[in-house]
C-alpha cells in the first residue's frame, strides 16, 4: 500500500475540508518522507485516527484506553455549533495504491447535537478500485472490510500504523495478543498457505481411521480406538487452554479496573506507584528466571562432562606422552619390522640371528609399535581429547555464573514478593474503607490469576504428555497393521494420507522455524545499526520466539529483555517491524507505509539520528507525526541530509479553536522549529 492523500472534512479538530498529500517515494529512491508537525493537542493523533477510521471504520484507538465511546466524538464541534442544530456530515477519504490497483476509500458519518450530547451515525462507506488498465469498479459495501483486510491484515496493522509511545508494547504483548499477532504475521509472510492443506489432510485422516476402526478387530481395533481417544483428548486440552487464556485475560482486565479505581483514592497514590513499579520489576525478574531455567539444559551435558574430565585428561596425557616419545606415529612401521623378523635379515642386508643384540633391538621396536590404523585412531582421539580438555575450565566458569545468576534472581524475587505483601497490607490498612475493599478484591483477583496460571501449566503438561503418547500409539498402530497384514485399498489410503499429513506438518514446522530465524537475523542487523554505540556493545541478538514474541540476548548470550530501557524497546520493536517488512517483501522493499505517531519521545539523540537515516531506506513510505519537542532543527537537518524528505505539514490553531493543516516548503521549515540541542 502506498498512500497518496488523506482528506478530512469536519473530522475531529479539522473544520471544513483539509487534505494531506503524501510524499510517495517515486521509483524507490525519491522523497518518501512526510512530516506532520504540531504541538500537543493540535490534532496529530486526529490524523492518525482519520487514517484508521478510513481503513477499518474504527473510532477507537488502542491509546484511548477506558475513555467511554460517548466521549470519542468524530464530528467537528465548531461545525456543529455553526450549523445551528442541523446535521453535519463528516468525511474521511483515503486515496492509495496497492499492488498496481488504485483505491479510493471513503467513510462518512452524520452527527447532530441533541441537547447536551452529540449523536453520530454511519452515513456512507464507499470503495472504488481502478485496475492498471484503467477499469474502475465500485466494491460492494459488504465486501469493503474484506478488501481492506487483504491490503493490510488488521492483526498486524499496529506494526505499520502505530503510536510511537506504545510501540514498545510489542515486546510486552500478552499471551492472547501474541496469539493474534502470530497469526497475522504468518499470514503476512504467507506461512499459512500450508495450514489449509494440513487441516484438510487431518480431516481425511480422521475419516479414514474411523472407517478402518469399524472394519478392524482385536488389537488393531483397540489401537484405533486409543489413538482416536488420544486425539480427542488433545483437542479438549487445546480448547481448555484457550478457555483458560480467555479467563486470564478477563481477570487481568478486572485487575486493571480495580487499579484505576484505587488510583482515584487520595493518600495512597505513592503506595500504588511503588507497588506498580515493584510488580513490573517482579514480572521482569520472573521472566529472566524462567529464561535462565530453560537455558540450563544446555549446561547439563557440559556439567556431566566435568565429571569425566580427569579421565579425559589422563587419556590425553597418555597419548600425548606416547606422541612425544615417538611411539605414535612410530618411527618404524610395524609391517617393516615384522618383515625383517620373518626374513631374518636386517635392512643393511646382514643376517639377523636370534639372541643377538640387533635382533633384541628389533624385538624391542616391535613391542613399542602398534597397528597403523590404531595409531591413526589414537592420534585422531588425541585431537578430540585436546579440545575437550581445553574447554573444561571455561565450561565450569559458565556453569558457576549461570547458577549464581539464578540464585541472585530468586533472592530478588523473594525480596520483592515480601515487599509487595507489606505494601498490600499498608494499602488495605488505609483509613479509607473503599481502599480496603478494593484491595481485598484485588487480592482475590490475584489469587484467581495464580490459580489460572497453575491450571494453564497443568494443561500444557497434559497436552505435552498426550503428544508423546500419540507418537507411541501411532508406532503401535503401524506395528499392529503390519502384523494383521491389512493391505486393502482403504488401509493403503489411510497410511498414505497419514504420511502426507505428517510430512506437511514437518515441512510447516521447519519452514516457520526458518522464517523466524531469518526474521531474527534481519532484526538483529537492523537493531544493531539503529542502536547507539553503548547499547550496541551490550545488546547482541534478537531472537524471534515461536509465538513471534521477541527476546534480546546480551553479549554473553543471556536473555536481557527485562533489563532494557523503554527507548531500547522502542528501537527493538522498530527493528523487528523493519525486518518483518523486509521478510514479507522477500528481502526487497515491502510496499507498505510506516505511519508513526510521536516516535522519538523516549529516544536518545544517537537513536534518533540513526532512525532518521535508516527508516527512509527500508520503508517504502514514512509518515512521521511529530511534536515541536521531538522534531527540532537538528532532526530536520538529519532528515534533509537523507535526501528523502518530501513534504512538511504544520498543524496550526485556527480562530474558531479548530486546526488548520498547512503545507510548508521544506526550505522554510527550519525557521519554524526550535533550536535546542536534542536530548533524550
Amino acid at each position, binding site marked *: 500500500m502506498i498512500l497518496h492523500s488523506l482528506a478530512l472534512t469536519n473530522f475531529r479538530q479539522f473544520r471544513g475540508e483539509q487534505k494531506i498529500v503524501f510524499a510517495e517515494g517515486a521509483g524507490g529512491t525519491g522523497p518518501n518522507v512526510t512530516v506532520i508537525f504540531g504541538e500537543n493537542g493540535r490534532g496529530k493523533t486526529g490524523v492518525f485516527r482519520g487514517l484508521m477510521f478510513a481503513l477499518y471504520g474504527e473510532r477507537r484507538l488502542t491509546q484511548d484506553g477506558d475513555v467511554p465511546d460517548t466521549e470519542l466524538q468524530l464530528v467537528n464541534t465548531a461545525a456543529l455549533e455553526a450549523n445551528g442544530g442541523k446535521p453535519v456530515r463528516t468525511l474521511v477519504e483515503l486515496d492509495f495504491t496497492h499492488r498496481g490497483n488504485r483505491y479510493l476509500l471513503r467513510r462518512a458519518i452524520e452527527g447532530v447535537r441533541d441537547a447536551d450530547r452529540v449523536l453520530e451515525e454511519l452515513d456512507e462507506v464507499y470503495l472504488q478500485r481502478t485496475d492498471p488498465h484503467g477499469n474502475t469498479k465500485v466494491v460492494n459495501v459488504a465486501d469493503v472490510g474484506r478488501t481492506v483486510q487483504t491490503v493490510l491484515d488488521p492483526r498486524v496493522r499496529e506494526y505499520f500504523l502505530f503510536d510511537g509511545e506504545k510501540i514498545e508494547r510489542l515486546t510486552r504483548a500478552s499471551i492472547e495478543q501474541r496469539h493474534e499477532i502470530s497469526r497475522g504475521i504468518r499470514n503476512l509472510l504467507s506461512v499459512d498457505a500450508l495450514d489449509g492443506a494440513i487441516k484438510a489432510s487431518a480431516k481425511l485422516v480422521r475419516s479414514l481411521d474411523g472407517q478402518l476402526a469399524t472394519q478392524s478387530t482385536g488389537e488393531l481395533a483397540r489401537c484405533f480406538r486409543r489413538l482416536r481417544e488420544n486425539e480427542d483428548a488433545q483437542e479438549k486440552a487445546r480448547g481448555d487452554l484457550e478457555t483458560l487464556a480467555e479467563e486470564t485475560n478477563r481477570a487481568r482486565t478486572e485487575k486493571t479496573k480495580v487499579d484505576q479505581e484505587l488510583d482515584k483514592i487520595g493518600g495512597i497514590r505513592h503506595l500504588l506507584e511503588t507497588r506498580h513499579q515493584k510488580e513490573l520489576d517482579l514480572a521482569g525478574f520472573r521472566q529472566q528466571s524462567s529464561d535462565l*531455567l*530453560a537455558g*540450563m*539444559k544446555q*549446561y*547439563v*551435558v557440559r*556439567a*556431566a*562432562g*566435568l*565429571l*569425566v*574430565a*580427569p*579421565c*579425559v585428561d*589422563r*587419556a*590425553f596425557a*597418555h597419548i600425548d606422552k606416547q606422541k612425544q616419545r615417538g611411539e605414535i606415529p612410530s618411527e618404524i612401521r610395524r609391517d617393516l619390522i615384522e618383515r625383517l623378523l620373518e626374513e631374518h635379515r636386517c635392512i643393511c642386508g646382514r643376517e639377523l640371528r636370534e639372541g643377538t643384540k640387533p635382533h633384541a633391538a628389533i624385538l624391542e621396536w616391535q613391542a613399542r609399535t*602398534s*597397528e597403523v*590404523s*590404531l*595409531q591413526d*585412531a*589414537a592420534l*585422531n*582421539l588425541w585431537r*578430540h*581429547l585436546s*579440545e*575437550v580438555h581445553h574447554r573444561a575450565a571455561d565450561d*565450569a566458569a559458565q*556453569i*558457576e555464573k*549461570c*547458577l549464581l545468576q*539464578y540464585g541472585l534472581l530468586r533472592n530478588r524475587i523473594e525480596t520483592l514478593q515480601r515487599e509487595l505483601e507489606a505494601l498490600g497490607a499498608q494499602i488495605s490498612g488505609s483509613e479509607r474503607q473503599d481502599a480496603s475493599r478494593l484491595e481485598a478484591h484485588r487480592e482475590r483477583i490475584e489469587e484467581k490469576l495464580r490459580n489460572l496460571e497453575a491450571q494453564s*501449566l*497443568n494443561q500444557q*503438561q497434559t497436552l*505435552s*504428555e498426550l503428544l*508423546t503418547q500419540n507418537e507411541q500409539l501411532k508406532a503401535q498402530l503401524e506395528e499392529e497393521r503390519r502384523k494383521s497384514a491389512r493391505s486393502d485399498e482403504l488401509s493403503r489410503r489411510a497410511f498414505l494420507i497419514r504420511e502426507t499429513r505428517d510430512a506437511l506438518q514437518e515441512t510447516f514446522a521447519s519452514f516457520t522455524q526458518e522464517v523466524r530465524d531469518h526474521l531474527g537475523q534481519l532484526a538483529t542487523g537492523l537493531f544493531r545499526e539503529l542502536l547507539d554505540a553503548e547499547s550496541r556493545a551490550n545488546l547482541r541478538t534478537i531472537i524471534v520466539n515461536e509465538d513471534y514474541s521477541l527476546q534480546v540476548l546480551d553479549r554473553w548470550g543471556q536473555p536481557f529483555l527485562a533489563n532494557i530501557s523503554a527507548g531500547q524497546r522502542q528501537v527493538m520493536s522498530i527493528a523487528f517491524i523493519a525486518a518483518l517488512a523486509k521478510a514479507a517483501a522477500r528481502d526487497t522493499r515491502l510496499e507498505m507505509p510506516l505511519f508513526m505517531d510521536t516516535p522519538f519521545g523516549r529516544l536518545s539523540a544517537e537513536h534518533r539520528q540513526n532512525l532518521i537515516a535508516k527508516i527512509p531506506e527500508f520503508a517504502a513510505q514514512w509518515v512521521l507525526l511529530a511534536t515541536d519537542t521531538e522534531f527540532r532543527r537538528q532532526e530536520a537537518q538529519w532528515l534533509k541530509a537523507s535526501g528523502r524528505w518530501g513534504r512538511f505539514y504544520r498543524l496550526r490553531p485556527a480562530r474558531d479553536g479548530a486546526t488548520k493543516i498547512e503545507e510548508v516548503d521544506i526550505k522554510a521549515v527550519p525557521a519554524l522549529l526550535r533550536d535546542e540541542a536534542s536530548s533524550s
Partner: protein
Amino acid sequence: MSMDTQIRVRTDARHGQLYNDLKNVVVGEFHELFFVCACLGYRAKKRVQLAKPADRFWSSTITPREWSSYYAMTLEAAKFDYQAISDDKRVTGLVEEYANAGMQVLLSELLHEYLLPGNRETPQLDVRSSTELPKHFLHFLYDQAVADDEIATNETRAAG
C-alpha cells in the same frame, strides 16, 4: 574409533519412561541424558549390566565430544590398549553399563523426590513438580565436579 553412526544404543527397558520424561525437562535429546548417566556411572566407578535391554537411540546422534569421553573411559578400562576402541559396538556396550549404573545413582540421590508414587519397577517422573529440576540437576552435577576437583587438588598438594 570411527564414531559409528549405525549402532542402536540401548538402555534398560525399566528406565524407558524415565528417559522419555527427563528428555525435554532437563536435556533436549536422549543421547544427552545417556551421556549424563554414563558420566555419573563412571564417576561412581560402577557398571551394571542391562537386565532388559531396549533400543533407545541411534549412535548417529552422539556428538564427537561425547564419543571422545566414551573412548577415554574405554581406554582407561582397557589399560590403554588401543584395540579396545577399535570396535565402536564394544565401546557403546561398555558405556551402556556405565549409563545404567549412572541412572541408578540419579534415582537414589536426586530423582527419588521427583517421582510419581507407585510403580518402583518402572519409575516415572512427576513432571508437574519438576519445574526447578533443571537447576537441581545442574547443581547436583556441578557440586560433584567441584568436590572431585577439590579432592584432586588436595591430593596433589599432599603428594607435593
